[in-house]
């Protein structure tokens, strides 16, 4: 009695279809434990849009960490990944270097089986990736996309080729749900040599060798014939099938097709070794934990597709088109676009709509129906690349009329631009470029790979991760500051407030302020001051300091010809200053300087003169040259620079005004006696506000 192998794809489907707000991997421990006990031949946990979805989770784990986590719980059943030969888990074609790293890292994190497909069934695309998997001791399942118009010999031939490349098993993937039961039965009968056909005896001999390699069938239940297909296939020698507890569209009383499938095996000479009790337990758990949290996508089950057995667009493609049409405000044209996709598919050599070809044809269909006046008036760059063979050999001939049309219209693009685009997509330095891009966030190979695949989402993820790390302290500090400054603001803006009240309040505020200044001091006031001294005593014109939470740029008054940019990555590493000249940064700062004539360095004595006003014969008002926070003393706890009645000389420091975390010393240009200090410590001051009055000698 033959034992059928059953692969479960539920974990992958959960990631794909789960409402990401409620998704937390830790809630699935029970589910993972149960699924491991059922005895599936393997579990597909990566594939389709799943990697991308994993990146935008809100439980602070990278896709790689998620895989490791799953592996740490699921110890018995091998884990499997569905990947495109060239596009891996994303949409672009990646250089061999990236493919190599991806396979290695995946294996390190616990993936043991790779199901490799190519949307165009181009063996040349598959070859290098299969070799890479085998070199790393991975198990490779060569995958053939099912094309309804190909004859059986095409598949027999293809399977032999994959086998000779070293694939451990084969999968026929019905990506567009066009497989019908009669075809399933014929396909496997011939592959597995169950039927001796005299007229084609040579082929029968040829594929005898295919009896000893496992051939799986993967089809969706979009048209409701999944179990029928599986039944016919296994009755004729198919070795394994894919099943999932997660529906593409959930409705009440939904029954996963694993149940009817197992029922169909009853009283047959084929068995399985799944643990039925555990399956029931898992179903109960999923009913409770997963189904209520599935995304409520629109139902696409369009009955016309079933009646005529048209290609069913892959689910992700439908969702993508729906979103795009919604943005264009043309949602009512969705049927037109669907039909156009199938029309284009036929015209351009009938490629399957798997990633990335589906995206290209979908985009072109929108151009053809909604954007341009007539079909094929505008041709997307990707479509041109595909037609020129950049993605691999197309299964059928391209309609010559289309080729002609495209050559006529896009003369400009073809001649002048195509070369550039091809170069861009085949960039061998991609990894290094990506590494450099995210050097501020992570130098972890896993994160760099994620960034190669989905740059924006990875950055967002890394940012979020960093925030969570540094948040606790930040939060407390900010709260305190806010409480304080609101009081200050009210005070300065409400000028009618009585002096007495102000005095009382000052005492209270000073206490709080002291605490706050201490926090501030611990952080870096001293260090910033050190840097300012360093700057003053050096030939360096500008310093830019960046650490996790702070960015400071210091400019000096003097115009020195020598331009240098001193960058300090970490305030704690003050001793080991990293002197680096970065042209782009200097340029940036230069242009910034040009744009703002009033920079911080302008707070010179000259500027100061303009802001002095003689109110009476010898009483001088000193006005703030900038907007910022007034500090009476060099640091909290220390005595103030000046007090009422104190004598000051030219050059003496009167106070500090902090603007954007930079401390600006305000110096006196006159000899005299402080008559009045008009603002209190840590009060915000605006431009031209009188801060002190000095009676000249």
């Amino acid at each position: 009695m033959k034992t059928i192998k059953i692969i479960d794809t539920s974990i992958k489907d959960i990631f794909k279809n789960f409402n990401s707000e409620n998704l937390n991997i830790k809630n699935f421990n029970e589910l993972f434990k149960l699924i491991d006990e059922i005895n599936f031949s393997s579990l597909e946990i990566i594939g389709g849009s799943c990697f991308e979805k994993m990146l935008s989770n809100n439980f602070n784990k990278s896709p790689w960490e998620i895989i490791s986590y799953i592996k740490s719980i699921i110890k018995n059943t091998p884990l499997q990944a569905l990947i495109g030969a060239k596009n891996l888990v994303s949409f672009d074609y990646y250089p061999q270097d990236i493919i190599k790293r991806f396979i290695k890292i995946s294996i390190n994190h616990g993936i043991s089986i790779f199901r490799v497909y190519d949307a165009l069934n181009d063996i040349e695309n598959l070859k290098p990736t299969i070799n890479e998997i085998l070199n790393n001791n991975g198990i490779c399942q060569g995958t053939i996309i099912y094309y309804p118009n190909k004859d059986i010999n095409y598949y027999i031939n293809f399977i032999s080729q994959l086998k000779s490349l070293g694939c451990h098993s084969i999968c026929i993937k019905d990506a567009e749900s066009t497989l019908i039961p009669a075809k399933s039965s014929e396909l496997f009968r011939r592959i597995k040599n169950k039927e001796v056909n005299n007229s084609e005896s040579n082929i029968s001999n040829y594929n005898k060798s295919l009896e000893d390699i496992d051939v799986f069938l993967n089809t969706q239940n979009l048209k409701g014939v999944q179990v029928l297909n599986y039944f016919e296939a296994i009755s004729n020698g198919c070795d394994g099938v894919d099943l999932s507890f997660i529906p593409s569209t959930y409705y009440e009383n939904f029954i996963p097709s694993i149940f009817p499938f197992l029922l169909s095996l009853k009283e047959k000479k084929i068995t399985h070794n799944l643990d039925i009790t555990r399956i029931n337990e898992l179903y109960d758990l999923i009913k409770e934990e997963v189904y209520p949290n599935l995304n409520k996508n629109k139902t696409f089950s369009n009955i016309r597709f079933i009646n005529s057995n048209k290609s069913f667009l892959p689910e992700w493609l439908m969702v993508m088109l729906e979103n795009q049409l919604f943005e264009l405000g043309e949602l009512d044209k969705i049927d037109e676009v669907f039909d156009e996709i199938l029309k284009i598919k036929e015209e351009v050599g009938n490629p399957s709509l798997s990633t990335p070809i589906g995206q290209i044809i979908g985009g072109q269909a929108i151009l053809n129906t909604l954007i341009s006046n007539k079909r094929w008036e505008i041709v997307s760059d990707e479509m041109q690349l595909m037609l020129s063979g950049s993605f691999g050999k197309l299964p059928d001939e391209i309609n010559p009329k289309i080729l002609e049309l495209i050559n006529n219209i896009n003369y400009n693009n073809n001649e002048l631009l195509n070369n550039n685009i091809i170069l861009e997509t085949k960039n061998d330095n991609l990894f290094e470029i990506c590494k450099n891009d995210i050097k501020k966030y992570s130098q972890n190979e896993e994160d760099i790979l994620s960034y190669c695949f989905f740059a924006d989402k990875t950055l967002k993820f890394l940012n979020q991760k960093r925030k969570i790390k540094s948040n606790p302290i930040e939060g407390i500090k900010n709260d305190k500051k806010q409480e304080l400054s609101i009081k200050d603001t009210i005070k300065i803006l409400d000028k009618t407030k009585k002096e007495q009240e102000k005095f009382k309040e000052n005492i209270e505020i000073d206490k709080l302020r002291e605490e706050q200044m201490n926090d501030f001091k611990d952080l870096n006031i001293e260090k910033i001051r050190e840097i300012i001294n360093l700057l003053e005593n050096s030939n360096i014109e500008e310093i830019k300091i960046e650490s996790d939470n702070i960015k400071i740029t210091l400019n000096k008054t003097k115009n020195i010809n020598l331009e240098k940019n001193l960058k300090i990555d970490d305030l704690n590493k003050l001793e080991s200053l990293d002197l680096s000249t970065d042209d782009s940064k200097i340029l940036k700062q230069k242009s910034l300087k040009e744009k703002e004539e009033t920079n911080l360095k302008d707070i010179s004595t000259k500027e100061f003169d303009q802001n002095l006003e003689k109110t009476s014969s010898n009483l001088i008002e000193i006005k703030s040259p900038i907007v910022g926070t007034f500090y009476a003393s060099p640091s909290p706890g220390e005595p103030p620079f000046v007090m009422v009645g104190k004598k000051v000389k030219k050059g003496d420091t009167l106070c500090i005004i902090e603007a954007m975390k930079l401390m600006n010393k305000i110096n006196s240009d006159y000899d005299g006696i402080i008559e009045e200090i008009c603002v209190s410590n840590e009060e915000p001051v605006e431009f031209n506000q009188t801060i002190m009055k000095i009676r000249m000698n």
Partner: protein
Amino acid sequence: MFKRILIANRGEIAVRIIRACKELGIESVAVYSTADADSLHVKLADKKICIGPAPASKSYLNIPNIISAALVTQSDAIHPGYGFLAENHLFVEQVISNNLVFIGPPSNLIDLAGNKSKAIEIMRKNNIPVIPGSINNVDNCNEAIKYARKIGFPVIIKASFGGGGRGMRIANNETELINLFPLAKTESLNAFGRDDLYIEKFINKPRHIEFQILADNYGNIFSPGSRECSIQRRHQKLIEEAPVLNLSEKTEQLMHRTAIKAAQVLNYKNVGTFEFLVDKDENFYFIEINTRIQVEHPVTEMVSGIDIIKEQIKIAAGENISNLIKDFTKRNINNDKKVFGHAIEFRINAEDSQNNFNPSPGKITNCFIPGGPGIRFDSFIHPGSVIPPYYDSLIGKLIIWGIDRNEAISRANRALNEFEVEGIKTTIPFHLKIINNEKFKNGFINTDFIEDEKIL
């Protein structure tokens, strides 16, 4: 939603933003230079803070003072308005690094849009129509002819390092091109020291048409419609209208989709405008993106019913616009034009239009603002207000709405005649001349209109 917004601008746009804040229940902080201490935006805002002396470079362009002002007033976000720092990506970076929200697109988009040739290159690669040209330098006459045949005559020969019209030659056919090419080369060499030339399709008397874009942080991108901005003097827009006129519905829809596609290509965020040139045969070409709220946004507001400034603030605060899009679509589902009525904006500048548009700052001793149905006046002036000489001469925008363009024009005629400003000269008489021009009334306008019709 934000608690408090600092408006890093002055004049009518600062007033407009403060009004939006008030309607949203957000506190506003006005910044001002010493010359603007009595200006209307300072009076209307909940808080005010002086940021520098009269010259804009030391006040409204003073990045450290503006950011410091936002920090000391505990503002959550900065609205840049238009002009000043609105399209300075370095300012945006500083805003962000001080943990403030910038109410506008991210700095990388501003940077990209500021680099026109790069923006055009990206559009070209994504099959958005741009003015066809040789892209690279054309070395000799044969090559020039080759390109010209592809592009189609007339073509314009331009100096790669040129500017200001020098070294530019228009060729209507091959013979002219053969004659003019060496001439342009010599001219360029003499004028700029380099003889690198490129050729581009020459678009004679184009129209300037643009599309307003709204895009939230979740990938929803939408356009409430088109604007016609062809009435310009020395590349300065003077009159804007919505929706476009004398354009086939098919072309308008195609442009609409193209604008949205262009925004999608760039993954555009917040508000912006995608500008196109349109030739006589309704071929259209992308020219540039404005990554800010525009002066002429009210005409779109009048015909679409959408308060663009409020939506801009909401988008920056992280709100989703999918419901706005749905409501808009629902509201306009039975309307071919997808907007309601027609709106025209007249820019009232403190300029002497009868005297070479010389600036005319000073004190407005008295004024009468027109009213009645369909009239909106966005401004900061009132009797006694002073127009300082330091800043833009725009003192207000008269926006007229009518059920169709004819009604809007007759209303505009009435309103401009009612309008009185004493103490300074304005562009009101100039606008009256334009709206009484027969070609304008019939909608036959292009960017050369003012010159061709000699309305000066």
